[in-house]
């Protein structure tokens, strides 16, 4: 990877992110009243996190079986509403044990 490509990429990411946060803070004091738009924004995190997780999670640990075990453990822990950190480390731990067992 070229350094200039990385630097421009980081600048693009940082610039876009900053503008999104800065514009309402500095220029907009009025509320957005569109129910549709508010609803759209409400669903975005769930849709984007899901799309990024499936199917990429299955190739995240080096072996498919350990990834599937880690994924299942994460879903179970999340279902019982454990803290983010606990779910993240629990999934890693499950994947690690599976790999140590030779899968």
């Amino acid at each position, binding site marked *: 990877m070229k350094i200039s490509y990385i630097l421009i990429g980081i*600048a693009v990411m940082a610039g876009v*992110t900053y503008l999104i946060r800065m514009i309402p*803070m*500095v220029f907009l004091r009025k509320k957005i009243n569109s129910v549709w738009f508010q609803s759209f924004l409400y669903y975005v*995190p*769930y849709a984007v996190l899901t799309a990024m997780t499936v199917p990429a999670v299955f190739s995240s640990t080096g072996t498919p079986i350990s990834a599937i075990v880690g994924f299942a453990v994460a*879903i179970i822990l*999340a279902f019982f509403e454990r803290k983010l*950190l606990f779910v993240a480390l629990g999934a*890693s731990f499950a994947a690690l044990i599976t790999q140590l067992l030779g899968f």
Partner: protein
Amino acid sequence: MKKQEFLEGVKDGLPICLGYFPVSMAFGLSAVLSGMPIWATILISMTNLTSAGQFAGVNQLVAHGSMIELAFSTFIINVRYFLMSLSVSQKADSKMNIFKRLAVSFGITDEIFAVSVQRKCAVSATYMAGLILISYAGWVGGTVFGAVATSVMPEILSNAMGIALYGMFIAIVIPPAKKQKNVMITVLLAMSLSLAFNFAPYLSEISSGWATIIVTVAVSAFAATLFPIVAVKEGNCNEN
């Protein structure tokens, strides 16, 4: 007085800092393992202060995606901050001038937003500075630790840590999906569409960056049309 407000911000931000550390450590690990240089990984955390956005950005940079794709996906993933920033903006006290607003807006994340709108009535720039700085320290510190640790950590351990970030995403998505049918349908639809974009003929030709954008916009628009949210929670000053 000012010092006390700053310290209150630091105190309220400490749980965020502790929560960020392992997550950004996982980000640092996975970014470096996927081929991002250590300095660039740290620079991304220092300049972005987002989780999903940084993660998607690294994926695209490593895959040599175009800048338009990168800008667009960053926008879609992070556009939720727009509403959060809007809420914080309405909660800001009258002494927060334009320069302070320019600085505070850099630090609006899901967690910082959540903590600041829970505070009784107006938030000052001093309070926000304490809250943001301690959280920022956790985020950047964890990234440095994770990025550097990859070189000394046994491969089997860093491999297993690769799933940590997905674990966090799952922990965010599952609890509301369990309780709300509309969220559950959103998640199942996003999952199916994302699988289609990865494996279906023709669709899988599309790069993963664009696929994420298309899935997100299509599914969110569909859900917003079918299940509009009438009362989105907002911070207000009524309790004071």
